[in-house]
């Protein structure tokens, strides 16, 4: 009995990790744009949702505001900053860290650094009864959400024309351009979508974690670990990685509490030693 609750806890934490990492999966994993402003976009989503939901009293309007806000910032970042340095990883790192710091400080000035919690999605507050034990409904919903999100992202990438265009542009940029794909335009929207996912994670995950400006960097690190273990451009890999980290962290905390803070990164080191391309990462045979 206790075991099943622990397993469920681990999976639910994994679900949260996947939701957090999903935006990064799109920007860094699929597009190969270094996006270290991911945590800041997460914060933008969460704080905007909190603010707007507070003013309007409507959760959905808040959620929408958070997602759209992060989407727009993502768009602007890609179009006006990152596209100018498309060839330089180092410039992308510096630019996105800088943008992240700016956004974080603006948030601190506007909302203070005290922890704040965006509203819980309606109907998910409280706990459900699972075999006689109380379990937070929000955590169950997070697990379900992660599954839906993973399937939806995979479907869009593999089954739609949009997905085909994105894959083509990333795999062979100049060929895609020469057959008429508007690559910069496409990148802008996809990066925006990655931002929107980060914003959504901020709204959803924020109600689970409570927001504070420093949280952005922790989120970025967790997201990076998940997608690197998963194999960068593999959505299934990221999902698998999130679940493994979730479960191992849960049981690690139970049985080896003094190593608690080591688990997430310890797992990352171990996986990369054994599988340098991540769990489900493609082995690249051709220079990209």
């Amino acid at each position, binding site marked *: 009995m*206790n075991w099943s*609750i*622990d397993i469920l*806890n681990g999976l*639910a*934490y994994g679900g*949260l990790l996947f939701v957090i990492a999903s935006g990064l999966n799109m920007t*860094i994993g699929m597009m*190969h744009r*270094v996006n*270290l402003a991911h945590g800041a976009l997460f914060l933008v989503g969460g704080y905007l949702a909190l603010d707007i939901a507070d003013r309007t009293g409507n959760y959905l309007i808040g959620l929408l505001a958070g997602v759209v806000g992060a989407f727009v910032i993502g768009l602007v970042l890609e179009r006006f900053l990152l596209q100018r340095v498309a060839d330089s*990883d*180092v410039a992308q*790192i510096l630019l996105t*860290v800088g943008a992240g710091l700016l956004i974080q400080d603006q948030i*601190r*000035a506007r909302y*203070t*650094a*005290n*922890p*704040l*919690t965006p509203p819980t999605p309606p109907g998910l507050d*409280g*706990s459900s009864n699972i075999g006689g*034990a*109380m*379990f*937070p409904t*929000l*955590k169950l919903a997070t697990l379900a959400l992660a599954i839906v999100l993973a399937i939806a992202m995979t479907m869009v990438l593999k089954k739609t024309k949009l997905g085909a265009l994105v894959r083509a542009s990333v795999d062979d940029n100049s060929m895609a351009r020469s057959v008429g794909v508007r690559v910069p335009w496409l990148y802008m929207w996809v990066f925006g979508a990655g931002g929107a996912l980060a914003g959504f994670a901020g709204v959803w995950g924020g109600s*689970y*974690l*409570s927001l*504070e*400006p*420093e*949280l952005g*960097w*922790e989120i*970025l*690190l*967790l997201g*990076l670990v998940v997608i*690197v273990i998963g194999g*960068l451009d593999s959505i299934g890999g990221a999902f698998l990685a999130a679940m493994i980290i979730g479960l191992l*962290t*849960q049981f690690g*905390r*139970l049985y080896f*509490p*003094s190593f*608690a*803070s080591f688990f997430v990164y310890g797992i990352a080191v171990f996986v990369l030693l054994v599988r340098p*391309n991540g769990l489900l990462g493609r082995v*690249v045979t051709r*220079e*990209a």
Partner: protein
Amino acid sequence: MSLRKRWYLPIFAASTGILVACSSTGAANNGSDGASAAPSESNSTSQAASPDSTAKGGAVVVGLLNAQSGPWAGLGGDINTGFNAYVEAHDGKLGGHSVTVKMADPGNTVAQAGTSAHRVVEQDHAQVVVGFINSALAYAVGPYMETSKVPLIITGAGADGLTQKAASPYIFRVGNSSSQPTLPLGDYTCKELGYKTATVIALDYSFGWEAAGGFARGFTNAGCEIVQEIYAPTGTQDWSAYVGKIDKKSQVVAMAVPGADGVRLLRAYRSYGVQLPIVAYGGTVDQTVLPTQGDTAAGVISMFGYSTALDTPANKEFMEAFQKAGGKQPNAYAEDGWSAAAALDAALAKIDGNVDSAAIVAALKGLSFETARGTIQFDEHGQAIFDMYVRTVEKVDGHWQNTVTKTLPKVSQFWTFDPEKYMALPPYEKLKGTWAK
């Protein structure tokens, strides 16, 4: 380009840098007495005092060194605002001397803290320095204060050792030491609340070990029993494993988990339906986090030297002045800043004519003064002795607050123990994990 295979290496390099520079879970935070963060005020560097012909003697320069950047910027801003609010409310004069406040940012690294201390002492000629939230920084700057013979009044940093084994004639502290509120809390929980067995949950670094150890010492000394100790790292996002581990046979759970971690812990505690009553180190439910904790904190009994709900003229004066000075939400950290200024006010009032550091040190020694929380007196190690308040979280007029239910007068950092014997005991970091039977 072989970009594809190796491109994530710079990302890891960069993010490791970020982790070191920005993360609030870094080891450099050890010993700070609150893991939360609070409003950041971008205070300008100095607050010039109007020269006044009624001033008693030479002007006094105070170096104010609370974090303006990094994870402690929020709380640092509150402390600085609290200090400046006191000076403003007294027309730029403390103890009859006109005062110039020189601010510098110690950040969250030992190097920057050292630079900021050197700057205010050597360039600005500060006769006294006020500051520090992160105990590691206070430890690092202590020896410099001693060689330059300039007194340091510590505000937020809580590490016990600063006013015990590492005490110095030049170091005073207006805030509490980490275990100062929890020693009497343990005693109170056993004797007055009547709980005989307890589980302790604390953050896994020196502050948590000291606060948890203080509780355990007070609790076991009163004849009760610790049955379980749980330590979790700062920045724990998912508390379910820890909450699930709590021994349901304990009669009470004692928490020393300030900041956003405290918000997440209480939320998990409630949503997993744990029914055990909670007692806490006061910072766990400080006003910086209480509005966000809301009903998850309802009924938590805690021990602290201050509560915004104190119904005294002195507290009312502090809260109004703090908000007038641009502070957003009065809290215990802001009150530490206010109290540091009150200490200087009382000390400088004893000095006629020219003020130098030696005179301030002499005046601060054993000083007793009034502040928002009540009366403070420095003990022979420089640590403040003050009344501790037993507080219960409840909602009054739509706002969550810590209602004071009992006052324990003049609580010392050694509680009722003999100072020499107490300091001869093994430090709390060695006792971690040995309290539970």
